[in-house]
């Protein structure tokens, strides 16, 4: 009970940080929106040939949402690293507050803000012609999946935020994830890739996640990759949650000198 209350207190603090620097939200949504427009209007004519009966904007919107989340979680790493550098985490550490509350607050605020960013990007997609045949239940499952994915990758961000030597470098792990989006069927089907790359693309975590999200929106069913996607999300979350808690005491201690 106390842990939940403390987590909410910490989340409130972190949300204030987010709300008071709206530029971070703009930065987060700007790149995915630019990519969306670029791919639909510049490459879409050519790439659209590859996606069969699915309209290109419908094809790439799930990948763009994943991109939004990934560029958003980088800020969670930045904020946490900043808190460590400024010594405020050490203040919390000398208080009777559980580490899971201190980090969990960041996780909660990051998840909420990234869902908001995703909504903004989705609105732009709708404005340029994205349409979905999904029913309310499919949308609910879509939202649940995006939330789970955000939470899992946020714990990854927290892990790297704890690991980083400086706030500026804390978000750089997300570039690797952004690269993974391009080497996945987010923008083009993997069928057109070289065999080696295709083998990688078909087996990396972003692929089943993007395909499940797309399947929910386009066909209104979770599809056959849903369980793999779910396993990846939960696996990433558990590993980085436990890793973060371990690293937390080590890293914050190392800065306390």
């Amino acid at each position, binding site marked *: 009970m106390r842990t939940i209350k403390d987590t909410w207190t910490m989340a409130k603090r972190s949300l204030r940080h987010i709300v008071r620097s709206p530029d971070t939200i703009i930065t987060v949504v700007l790149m995915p929106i630019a990519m969306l427009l670029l791919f639909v209007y510049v490459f879409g004519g050519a790439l659209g040939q590859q996606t069969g009966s699915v309209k290109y904007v419908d094809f790439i919107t799930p990948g763009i949402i994943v991109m939004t989340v990934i560029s958003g979680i980088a800020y969670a790493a930045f904020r946490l690293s900043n808190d460590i550098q400024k*010594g405020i985490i050490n203040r919390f550490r000398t*208080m009777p507050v559980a580490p899971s509350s201190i980090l969990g607050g960041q996780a909660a605020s990051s998840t909420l803000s990234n869902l908001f960013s995703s909504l903004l990007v989705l609105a732009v997609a709708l404005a340029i012609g994205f349409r979905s045949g999904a029913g309310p239940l499919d949308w609910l499952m879509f939202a649940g999946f995006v939330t789970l994915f955000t939470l899992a990758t946020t714990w990854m961000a927290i892990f790297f935020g704890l690991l980083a030597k400086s706030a500026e470098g804390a978000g750089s792990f997300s570039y690797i994830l952004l690269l993974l989006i391009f080497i996945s069927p987010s923008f083009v089907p993997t069928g057109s890739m070289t065999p080696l790359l295709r083998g990688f693309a078909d087996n990396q975590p972003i692929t089943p996640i993007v395909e499940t999200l797309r399947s929910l929106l386009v066909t209104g069913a979770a599809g056959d990759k849903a369980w793999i996607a779910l396993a990846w999300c939960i696996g990433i979350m558990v590993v980085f949650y436990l890793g973060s808690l371990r690293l937390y005491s080590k890293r914050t201690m190392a800065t306390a000198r």
Partner: protein
Amino acid sequence: MPAGEATLRSEIFWQNDYDTDSRYGMSIATSSDIQKVSNRLQPAIVVRQLTKGFKNNPVLTGVDFTVESGTIFALLGSNGAGKTTTINILTTLLKADGGTATVNGFDVAEQPAKVRQSISLTGQFAAVDDVLTARENLELIGDLRHVNDAGQTATELLAKFDLAEAADRRVATFSGGMRRRLDIAMSLIGDSPVVFLDEPTTGLDPEARNEMWQTIKTLAHHGTTIFLTTQYLDEADELADTIALLHKGTIVASGTARELKKLVPSGLVELSFQNEQQLKAATCALDNQYSVTQNGDLTLTVVVGDHVAGLAELFIRLRDAQIEPVDFSQRVPTLDDVFFKLTSDTQEGN
């Protein structure tokens, strides 16, 4: 320096000799002493043979001290002496390599959660949240400490620390003194019995420094045990009931301010002269009687002993030799002097 203060100082420095027993024995209680003390009142902090190193670089090499409940204790030392490391171990931020430390009766390594319920820490660099307002900062800590009415507590502290007008401004716009005040106010939420202040006045202007001293005194008046670190002898002198001098990872001396000052070389006078001839003449006139060293171009440091008579004698000698110094000052003993004295004593001992 006002006359009264000068008299007081010369009184304190009068007794130049000290015995080594009191020097090292002041705060190191034997086990039977601890027994006696805990029967009356449990000490707030007990540290025994504490060691800590970073990557083969020893920072603490066996630190011992005891802080009685409800007193102000100052850990005095220069930069890099290990003051912050000691505070970090006592506040559960760092694990010691060896030795033991208890805070409010709880072992910092074995019962860190209990220790955290007993303490609050104000770090060396104000750990306040720049993005939040002063009120939000206070309410945040109040919520985390589960006080009954965090809002009411915040309002009271804002008034008490003269921050009521700035309450709803973001802390990023605050001056150094205001940040420090807010920082301390945040530490007071929840009425922790032991408060740690790491260099509470470093970086403050003289006025803010005085305010901080008042705050600390008031706090101690209400029975809170205060552990503070400082680089300044005068600060320790002003505030602390007991001072421990940390040097190269160990406590080289401890006791009350009065006891410590007996260790300081006394009666240092600096004389400045108009030219080289005057300086040489003064050296000739004085050096058969006093220890004279030249420091700077036209300045001599003379050890006259502590009392007024010694000082008068010095000026009579100068007048007899028809030498007129252009400037004269008494050197206030500094921490450096204490270190110098203690380290040179150690070398003599070897």
